């Protein structure tokens, strides 16, 4: 391997692009972060994250796009909003994560969790076809698609045969108007590729 660069990372105070994007698109100013960690100590699942919310802010400051868009925490976040609720500077971390998830999805960087993509697909097509969702059916389809035949489906089917679960939820009446919405606004949706 050629030795070309110093192994020490050089800091450059030039405003990172991501922070500017967040300011522009979401009106969120991460320079307000006090680095106190109140978000992370209260987080529902930070003990299972690769980066705690406080570290994510630091990654944004350091313009670590790759780490942010590929981090496990992006998809294991429970969206419980506690980070925002506790933040002394009211930094809207849940919205930042929504934004990053959208980016990761758009850039197809969610390969760390292929099941996410599958889940989106199934959920969207369910809403498109019925207006409302049936988690029972979705769960079955999801498990089938991700080849997890014996996890949730197992319990789901048992419950179904015991009469505990309804398989179909009530359908929305005026479905054509909803499908028109899909057609108009969700051009890129995987659901569009499904036969209606």
């Amino acid at each position, binding site marked *: 391997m050629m030795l070309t660069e110093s192994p020490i990372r050089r800091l450059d105070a030039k405003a990172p692009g991501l922070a500017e994007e967040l300011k522009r698109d979401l009106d969120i100013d991460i320079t307000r972060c006090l*680095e106190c*960690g109140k978000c992370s100590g209260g987080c529902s699942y930070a003990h299972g994250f690769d*980066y*705690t919310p406080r570290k994510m802010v630091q990654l944004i400051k350091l313009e670590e796009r790759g780490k942010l868009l590929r981090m496990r925490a992006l998809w294991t976040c429970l969206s419980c909003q506690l980070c925002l609720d*506790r933040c*002394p500077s009211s930094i809207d971390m849940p919205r930042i994560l929504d934004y990053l998830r959208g980016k990761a999805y758009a850039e197809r960087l969610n390969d760390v969790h292929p099941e996410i993509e599958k889940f989106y697909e199934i959920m969207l097509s369910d809403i498109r076809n019925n207006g409302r969702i049936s988690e029972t059916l979705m769960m079955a389809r999801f498990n089938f698609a991700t080849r997890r035949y014996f996890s949730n489906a197992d319990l789901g089917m048992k419950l179904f045969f015991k009469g505990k679960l309804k398989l179909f939820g009530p359908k929305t009446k005026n479905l054509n108007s909803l499908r028109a919405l899909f057609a108009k606004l969700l051009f890129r949706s995987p659901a569009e590729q499904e036969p209606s």
Partner: protein
Amino acid sequence: MSEKATALIIGGGIAGMEAALKLGQGGYRAVLAEKDHSLGGTVSKLCSSFPRWEDPQDLLRLKEQQLQSLETISILRDTEITGIEKKKGTFHATWKNSSGEEGALNAQAVIVATGFDLFDASIYGEYGYGIYPGVVNSLEFEQVLKDHTDGKAALPRNIAFFKCVGSRDRSKGHPYCSKICCMYTAKQAGTAKNLSPESKCYVFYMDYRAAGKEYEEFVRSVIEEKQVRYVRGRPSKVVMEKGQLLVRFEDTLIGAPMEVAVDMVVLASAVIPKPATRRLAEMLGLKTDEYGFIEAEYGSAVKAQENIFFAGGCGFAVETIGASAQGAAAAAEVMALFNKGGKP
């Protein structure tokens, strides 16, 4: 100015006492009005002091003895100033005491020394102040320390101290640093370890601000000699586990969410202005900042406006020594004013 020129000092805490003392020692007349029976204000509630582990009550006793020997100083205890207005260079004040007596007095200068309050920490539901009996604010903890010293109640075994409760929190309307909490929290944790060396004390901090003579050394000695554990991170919540308090936080130096079990949580609540300060500021037309602390005129540390001065916590959070210094400075301003024509 006339020989009878009198200063009215409102508030008999350490700042007001020092102002009265200096005026009296200089031969000037002053009336010191204190709403409580005893002098000393917040300092009278403290069980130890930084940076030298002295007993603040010794200091108050000394000051009070000195005050009582001064003929030109009169002290109105249990007395509140109910109204004040300025007419032709003279302040006309009315007062009422706890036995219902009312009266009026005139003064040529006023020193406001009404002190500060602590922010009501119950707004943080996640910390459980007012819900869990083991969660107290820092002034209440001074009493806990005193009770232990007096043999009334033993100190809880393991104690967590939260700094910046209300301070440095825009979401709760107090973006400022309350300045004194870093030092008194170090003092409180150190005192707990002095009284009960087997106790475990945890101080949660974002950073510790020890800007003052001997302050840094003091905090270091609390960490290194008293073995108080400093944890960098702002606690997120307190939950109850089988009767014990459990503090959840992130150790921000390694990025690990953690918890610690304690018997007591001490909240260093933000320093805020007293309602009395707001009332006086309104009556006297004083300028206050957006939080309600009295603002100084440009070029002075203690002058609010013509013939009106202030000292201590009514201007902003300040420690004992700083409040004393401001009291003395306010007294110097009054002396300069009264002495304009030569001798008093």
